């Protein structure tokens, strides 16, 4: 049935994916930072929070990214922070997508009262600024880890995804192959899982990518306000420390610029990848 894509179609996607410059550039940047996050921490012997050198040194062969006001190694903080960034994106974005998919599919397929109430819920959560809720939750958590932070970010990020998937489900629900499945006696769960969901796979991937980027940006802001992980290191926390300890006034660019630059590069790469993937999946958008 519909979920079995012919081999030709699949290889066609791969063909266009490899040809798409936006996708290649975005993926390249993303893979570069991912490798950095995985391997980077092994290249330094310094712990991110240990006081290892003279204070406020610009980059040198000993301290590649310089040192902080307290003599911590900026490179080590950066590499470990990058790891947290990917963890937050993966867990936060994953949870956000999952809840969005569940609510969107249920509301879109069921319709009626279920849809009305879920839609109301979605609209309400959509208006409440995510970060305001995160601030108040984080403020009351005495011990915060990157994992908890990611979970809360995911729990508050789903509304737009739910809305988009609901709209997609609506349009798919009225199609002939779904009617056919319904007539042949499939139950709702089966229809949703085997008929509707597979036809949205490409769309779900795009949603996940945007959720991934959104989770990273939210985490960065939360950390920057001072509500980030109480243990461990993150890029937002680095910026928070840099600004609080007058790196701006002292002109310590090596401490100020890299963390945000990495976030901007990763999120930008995700956005560009998203546009590229959209072109791959949607033949109308392909540049010939």
């Amino acid at each position: 049935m519909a979920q079995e894509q012919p081999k030709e179609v699949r290889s066609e996607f791969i063909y266009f994916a490899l040809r798409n410059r936006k996708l290649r550039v975005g993926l390249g940047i993303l893979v570069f930072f991912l490798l950095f996050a995985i391997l980077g921490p092994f290249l330094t012997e310094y712990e991110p929070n240990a006081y290892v050198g003279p204070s406020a040194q610009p980059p040198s062969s000993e301290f590649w990214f310089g040192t902080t006001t307290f003599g911590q190694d900026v490179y080590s903080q950066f590499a470990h922070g990058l790891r947290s960034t990917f963890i937050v994106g993966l867990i936060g974005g994953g949870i956000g997508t999952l809840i969005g998919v569940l609510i969107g599919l249920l509301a879109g397929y069921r319709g009626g009262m279920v849809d009305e109430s879920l839609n109301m819920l979605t609209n309400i959560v959509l208006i409440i600024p995510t970060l305001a809720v995160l601030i108040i939750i984080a403020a009351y958590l005495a011990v915060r880890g990157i994992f908890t932070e990611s979970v809360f970010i995911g729990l508050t990020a789903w509304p737009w995804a739910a809305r988009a998937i609901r709209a997609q489900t609506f349009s798919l629900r009225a199609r002939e192959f779904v009617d056919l499945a319904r007539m042949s006696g499939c139950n709702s769960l089966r229809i949703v899982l085997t008929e509707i969901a597979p036809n949205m796979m490409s769309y779900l991937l795009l949603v996940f990518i945007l959720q991934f980027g959104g989770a990273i940006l939210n985490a960065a802001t939360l950390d920057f306000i001072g509500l980030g992980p109480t243990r461990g290191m993150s890029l937002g926390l680095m910026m928070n420390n840099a600004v609080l300890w007058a790196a701006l006034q002292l002109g310590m660019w090596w401490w100020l610029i890299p963390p945000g630059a990495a976030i901007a590069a990763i999120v930008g790469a995700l956005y560009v990848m998203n546009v590229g993937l959209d072109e791959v999946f949607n033949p109308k958008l392909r540049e010939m």
Partner: protein
Amino acid sequence: MRRYLGRKLLIYLLTFFVAVTIDWLIPRFMPGNPVDTMLARMALRADAAEVLRSYYIRAFRLDLPLWQQYLNFWTALFKGDLGISTWLFPQPVFQLIKRAVPYDLFLLLPAIILSWMAGNWVGAIAARIRWLDNTILPLGYILTASPYMWLAIVLAWALGNVAGLFPIAGAYGFGLRPHLSWLFIRDLLWHWFLPFASLFLVMFGGWAIGMRNMIIYELESEYSRYLESLGTPQRLIRRYAFRNAMLPQITGLALQLGGIVAGALATEIVFAYPGIGYIILNAVQNQDYFLIQGCFLFIIVGVLMANFIIDLVYIVVDPRTRLGMTGE
């Protein structure tokens, strides 16, 4: 139209209700007794701790049944009583927030409106001029992917620290007191420029990309093709496309508000700009929970009001809502 507005108002009221409930619920649902956690982390002198403990227990009324606590919370709220700040001790939270809000509006309103207009304008032009498109598109993606505070940091470092053109902290010079004079207004604008510019730029990127994509979509739609085949001048078709493309941009503004407010909070922290963001930073550092809760409610109310204004604008701009043709 009445149905459309009524539905929106119902959602806003429910949202406000949910937000107040969250504000009440979270301190009570977090593990441990909030009063003890707060006191333990404040490291106060013993007598001060005792005063505060009795104050907190009175304020929270933790001895009462839960439904009574909840009702009391609402009653206090309608009296404008958001508690007393512990960071700036005897000052009521409401007063602190009231003092900060003008700075937020002064920063946010121009940044939102100007970036929205400029972004739409540039995006629409980029959709039909190739070289502009090739520069605006990558630039827009970089800007919209930047965390607000990072762009603020970059601008503060480059234009404030290295070039020395702008001050990088505060809303006005330390030597000045707020009063109405050219000297003060000049100083105020001078301090305002960098935070404004960094907010403006991040938002501008998003609007420009959105408008560009929408215009391309509209120009390829059936009605544009039809008009084209009738020999309608390009200018007219583009004007139709622009007006149609604007509607999703207005909806987008409503959806982005939460993110924009978050961005403003972070930007204010970078520039030590005395708005709500700066208050939240201090409240977090000093564990001033009433202040955090007060700021939370204030942000929600602000966002709800802004949403309502956007709805009203939408009614003016889109005749279909006036005629009751769209439910959403």
